[in-house]
């Protein structure tokens, strides 16, 4: 394997570990700081509801019932260079379970695109889905 790619895969995995730690700690315990993790133009897609930009995302999280996330699986890859103009960007996918206001746990899956902006990692896209049938969600 190309050593360049190998190094990027390594970095993607380590970044994913650090990122998810920070992200779920923020969502569960420091919600007022969550928008700092997103790009100004960042997008949150929560169960099919799209929320764009730091301020609306911040507002969405403040209104969401309190959460307690447990990560079960984590996966990460470097995004193909040509698709992102060579900008260091990772695709991260998480699964686990989440309790809302100490109610029973629900299974969730979430995928992120995270990119380097200066010396900080920022979320370009955050896509969250609860594992539930559609009709029950309606």
């Amino acid at each position, binding site marked *: 394997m190309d050593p360049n790619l190998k190094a990027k895969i390594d970095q993607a995995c380590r970044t994913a570990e650090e990122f998810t730690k920070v992200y779920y700690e923020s969502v569960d315990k420091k919600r007022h700081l969550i928008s700092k993790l997103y790009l100004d133009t960042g997008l949150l897609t929560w169960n*099919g*509801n799209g929320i764009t930009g730091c301020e609306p995302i911040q507002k969405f999280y403040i209104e969401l019932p309190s959460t307690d996330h447990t990560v*079960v699986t*984590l*996966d990460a890859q470097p995004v*193909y260079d040509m698709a992102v103009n060579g900008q260091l960007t990772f695709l991260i996918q998480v699964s686990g379970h989440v309790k*809302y206001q100490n109610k029973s746990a629900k299974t969730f899956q979430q995928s992120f695109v995270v990119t380097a902006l200066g010396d900080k990692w920022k979320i370009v*896209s955050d896509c969250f*889905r609860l594992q539930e049938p559609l*009709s029950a969600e309606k």
Partner: protein
Amino acid sequence: ISFDIEDDVARLPPSKQTFLCCAEGQAIMRKFMEQYFIIFDSDSRKPLLQAYHENALLSMTMAYPYGQNSRNPPFLTWYATDNRNLQRVTDSERRAKMLKHGNLQIVTFLDEMPHTKHDMNSFTVDLSLFTPQLLLVTVTGIFKEPAKQRPPLRYFVRTFVIVPSGSGYCIVNEEVHISNATEAQIKEAFKTPTVEIVPPTPATSPNLNTSGGGGGPSSSAVPVP
């Protein structure tokens, strides 16, 4: 007497089946999904070779949903071997090795996966990014493994990074997550019969051509509004 704030029930925003960051991406998405999953459910997944970039990356994770475990059926054993869960796979060599690299390795892997039939009506589709350089799509849904005696129902989440290629599109990154369907999902699965769709001819299927194709499926199997 209790305090008002403690009585507040966990009220979550209602879910939506589809999110499109950009209406323009809808037609491309729809065609991509139809063609991809028709081939995926067919007897051979080899035509998907053209759907992946020669340097594409694919990885898979699997987990039982909350309340299920590996001691009770249906088992997810087949998917356990390639489970690239970074929580458990901590060695950097293995992390690189478990990433499928290149369309040949990817399609060989996909072709070995158990035979599937997807319930297109169960699909959720989120198009998060749509730029001239790339599309970012997350699809979730239910499939069954019809070859098994008591076909188990699975739940999948697949995130694709797709780039323009020639007159069509191809996948450069994909992360697959496989789980079992929950009791609630089993009740709703395969309720609406899907229209039988004639598989696309090889001439139009391989590169998920979205421009001027013709010959592709005429009816929409995926509920993209």
